[in-house]
């Protein structure tokens, strides 16, 4: 085939994929800066004639006329942030200790344990939710960030252990032997030698856990109902349910909810690809 023609076809294909990726996102953003009148016009206004940041102002500086979901959206952003960061911090500490023990210390049954741990990650949330709900209501934890942090560990922790184990496994054992010869004990070796080397693994694992927790919907839907603990996905779902179409606020909420994960993922791009190839899973 003619080389120029081949390049032309490839470029066209690239453009088709790019359009498929960006058109929906562009429409999300455009809808968030359109006035209500323009959103509800036929034929459609692709480019808003009077772009406005009113929807964003409604969320960050709410006045009285604004719907409740928009008014409380800031708080749900904060809740999401608290829950996702706490889950990330806990899983990184607890999970990397366990992963190190499984990979390096001569624990009996460590392979079986590792496989069992990965197996628990695969349990769907819906199969855990009834007992966890009973537990939460007995200990008055419904509608608290605490119950979300605790229940999110059910998928985040096994996942973090698995990923960190994969990273620890790539560190040459000679490094540890050398540290021991120099007089480090196991814990000193872990803290001074292994953790600094596995920084990329920690970043990658932390990123995946944060994104998964930020994304989580089902537990948040079941366990939270007020702004005391409601997270962003629940707030966005409520825009569609409880209130008569407030498309502008809904799309603005969507943009705001998407910004942190998209930004993090783009900044830490290379960690994502390495994490994905290590068998990471965030749908």
């Amino acid at each position, binding site marked *: 085939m003619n080389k120029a023609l081949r390049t032309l076809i490839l470029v066209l294909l*690239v453009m088709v994929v790019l359009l498929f990726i960006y058109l929906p996102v562009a429409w999300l953003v455009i809808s968030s800066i359109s006035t209500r009148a323009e959103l509800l016009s036929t034929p459609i206004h692709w480019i808003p004639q009077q772009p406005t940041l009113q929807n964003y102002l409604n969320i960050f500086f709410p006045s009285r006329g604004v719907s409740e979901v928009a008014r409380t959206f800031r708080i749900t952003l904060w809740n999401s942030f608290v829950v996702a960061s706490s889950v990330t911090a806990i899983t990184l500490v607890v*999970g990397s200790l366990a992963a190190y*023990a499984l990979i390096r*210390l001569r624990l009996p049954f460590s392979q079986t344990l590792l496989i069992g741990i990965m197996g628990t990650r695969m349990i769907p949330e819906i199969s855990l939710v009834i007992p966890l709900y009973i537990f939460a209501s007995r200990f008055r934890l419904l509608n608290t960030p605490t119950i979300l942090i605790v229940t999110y560990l*059910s998928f985040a922790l096994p996942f973090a252990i698995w990923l960190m184990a994969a990273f620890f496994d790539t560190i040459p054992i000679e490094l540890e032997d050398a540290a021991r010869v120099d007089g480090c004990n196991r814990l000193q070796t872990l803290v001074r030698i292994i953790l600094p080397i596995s920084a990329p693994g920690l970043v990658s694992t932390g990123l995946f856990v944060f994104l998964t927790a930020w994304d989580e919907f*089902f537990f948040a839907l079941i366990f939270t109902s007020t702004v005391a603990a409601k997270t962003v996905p629940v707030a966005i779902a409520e825009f569609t349910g409880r209130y008569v179409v407030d498309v502008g606020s809904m799309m603005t909420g969507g943009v705001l909810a998407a910004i942190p994960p998209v930004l993090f993922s783009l900044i830490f791009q290379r960690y994502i690809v390495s994490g994905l190839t290590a068998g990471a899973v965030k749908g």
Partner: protein
Amino acid sequence: MVRKLTLRQYDALIGFILILPSLIIILGISLQPILSTLYFSLFEASRGINASQTFIGLGNYVALLTDAVFWAAIGRTLYFTLVSVVLELVLGLAIAQLIHTRPPGWRFLRTSLIIPWAVPTIVNGTMWRWIYNADYGALNGLLSQLGLIDKYIPWLTKPELAMNLVILADIWHSVPFIALILQAALATLPADLEEAAAVDGANALQRFLLIRLPLLRPAILVALVIRTVEAFRVFDIIYVITNGGPAFSTVTISYLTYLETFSFGHIGRGSALSFLISLFTLVMAFVYIRILYRPEEKL
């Protein structure tokens, strides 16, 4: 008298201490609950969580397996899983292949793939629901301006279309994930095999089918199993786009479980349903681990 531990015993002791917090957490929030769910599934409890319960053994399971509603939900779930996973794999592979040929703009394309993958599922669903909107949606706007439709179509009110529209939204989110995995795998393949095959007269299609595809098999299998497990338990995106409607045409097995448990308060039956989902998932998880975890043979 304190006996001095050998290094091996010392290691095992430290290891046990390090792993203990994780084990306690996993036992408490995963294993104990799944066993409770199994236990609840053996009871007739159809009036909420605190109501009285009667032991009925496998009664809930028998009732489910003889219920047309259950099989309809299974059918929809299988349809969703099969169609979305096959399309996602094919498109993902095609995009990975496209990136691998290094056309102009491939770096930008590879970076762009991260965006749909990172957008939260609920945002993705909300966005598509608005695109599909009957009166003001972008899909209707686009198609009518292109002259492809005469009047606006109420997409999400059509039972025969709704599931496919959910699948399209899922594709937007998941194809990039698969493409990213597969393009990373492609980048690690040795080039000399294919060059040798080309010298021996294999054409591009033969090289792709007989050399590249078999070498990609592990990566494809990983993507396949991850996506199958996720697709089988699909809930979030259905909740936002269709709410199970129209006419129950998007009630998948997870959605049915949600309705039984939280809308109708059928705790026993809901538990039985969710345990069946777990069972399927664990089978898939086993396959997944067998593929991924091979200590001797590193990929």
